[in-house]
């Protein structure tokens, strides 16, 4: 049986709102893609277009071989449908006990999801999202509100995600998963920077910690915490 390949293609895509606009062109294959860009650059707009939740003003978005799509919004409360934490897990078709123990929220099962702290709610939401495989998974700022321990844990999960296209939109500056491709939004346009480590020289949003390692002649192989440490301690 032929293995169905998944591919997301953006052809001459343009989205605009008043005087603001973003254009995008490119092909996203299987693997983990990081898209960096400033607040207001159009990361969320692009994510919605890719998922098919909104239509571009012009151009074409094609999803080949993609039968399941998931979008994780930056603000986790947009996703809440259950009136208790337990119901929220069940609404995703998941076993509450398994999910809650994976994020240390066992004691919160009967609480109103909105009574959790923002970080706890984000943790719960990501656990629900990441417990399934999707052909196309779009994560819009998954690290905002998370503490560093949780950021590292999520990065570790993402680094080991084996199938489908995962697109990670983030302005995070320090803690990343190991990624296959780096893109950035610059001057209203999506640009492909390449795969690490070659991509670093084309990456205008390259985080200061990576730039400093490169400048010190210690270019990391990739951008995860382990890669940065390995590069820093290399003799």
């Amino acid at each position, binding site marked *: 049986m032929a293995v169905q390949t998944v591919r997301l293609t953006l052809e001459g895509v343009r989205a605009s709102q008043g005087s603001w606009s973003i254009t995008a062109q490119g092909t996203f294959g299987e693997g983990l893609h990081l898209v960096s*860009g*400033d*607040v*207001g650059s159009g990361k969320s707009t692009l994510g919605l277009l890719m998922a098919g939740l909104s239509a571009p003003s012009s151009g074409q978005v094609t999803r080949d071989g993609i039968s399941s799509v998931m979008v994780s919004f*930056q*603000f986790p409360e947009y996703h809440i449908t259950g009136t208790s934490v337990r119901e929220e897990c069940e609404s995703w078709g998941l076993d509450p006990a398994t999910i809650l123990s994976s994020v240390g929220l066992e004691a919160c099962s009967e609480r109103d999801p909105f009574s959790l*702290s*923002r*970080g*706890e709610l*984000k*943790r719960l939401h990501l656990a629900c999202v990441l417990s399934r495989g999707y052909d196309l998974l779009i994560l819009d*700022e998954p690290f*905002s*509100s*998370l*503490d*560093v*321990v*949780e*950021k*590292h844990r999520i990065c570790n999960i993402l680094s080991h995600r084996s199938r489908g296209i995962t697109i990670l939109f983030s*302005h995070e*500056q*320090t*803690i990343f998963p190991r990624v296959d491709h780096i893109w950035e939004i610059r001057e209203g346009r999506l640009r492909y920077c390449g795969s690490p480590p070659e991509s670093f020289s084309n990456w205008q949003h390259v*985080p*200061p*910690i990576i730039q*400093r*390692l490169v400048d*010190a002649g210690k270019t990391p192989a990739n951008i995860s*915490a382990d890669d*940065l*440490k390995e*590069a*820093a301690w290399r003799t």
Partner: protein
Amino acid sequence: MIHIAELHYRALAIESLTIEPGVTAIIGANGSGKTSLLKVCAGIALTEAGTILIEGKGPRQSAIGWVNEFPDRNFLFDTVSDEIASALRFQHLPPEVIAIRTEEILHRFGLAGLSGRSVRELSGGEKVLVALAAAMILTPRVLILDECDSHLDARSMAKIDEIILRSGIPYILRSTQDMETAAGSNRVVFLENGRARFSGTPVTVFSGLEETLFYPMTWRCRL
């Protein structure tokens, strides 16, 4: 000095904590009590037991500026200039004084071009600037920022840092999940399960956290 003693509020239980003038970063895991601590210091919430004294006065007797983590939750009014002027209006200052001070702060923050715009139409970075201007117009003794860097990019954050560091406000308390930001502050308080486990200079506090993921990545990489 800000003196905290025998403090109890929700999950927070702090026996004794002194906050010196300067920029203090409040760090800790999700749910460790960072927002609770900031709320009682701001007087937004009252403690269940214990005392907080800011230069000898309670939080509600002190001038305090507050910036929420979520840019949209800071706003009461529609336009940028109405939002920024609101604290002065609530004090019933004469309209001429309000106009002059609002104009002055709009220029200082580079917001003059946005004064008539609706706050809803602003970018995330602009929203935080407006919230900061509204919090600073009364020149508070204490400025409190609750993870306002969480939804901002590095460029917007650098601008905000520049403004708060030059503000001359004696106490700046900010919670953050960015350990590089914490490492660059004057003091750090590390909360764990509602308790102030470490407090002091970044070097002192992070030396107690070297075995954890809280240790700043740039320090770990010896940069």
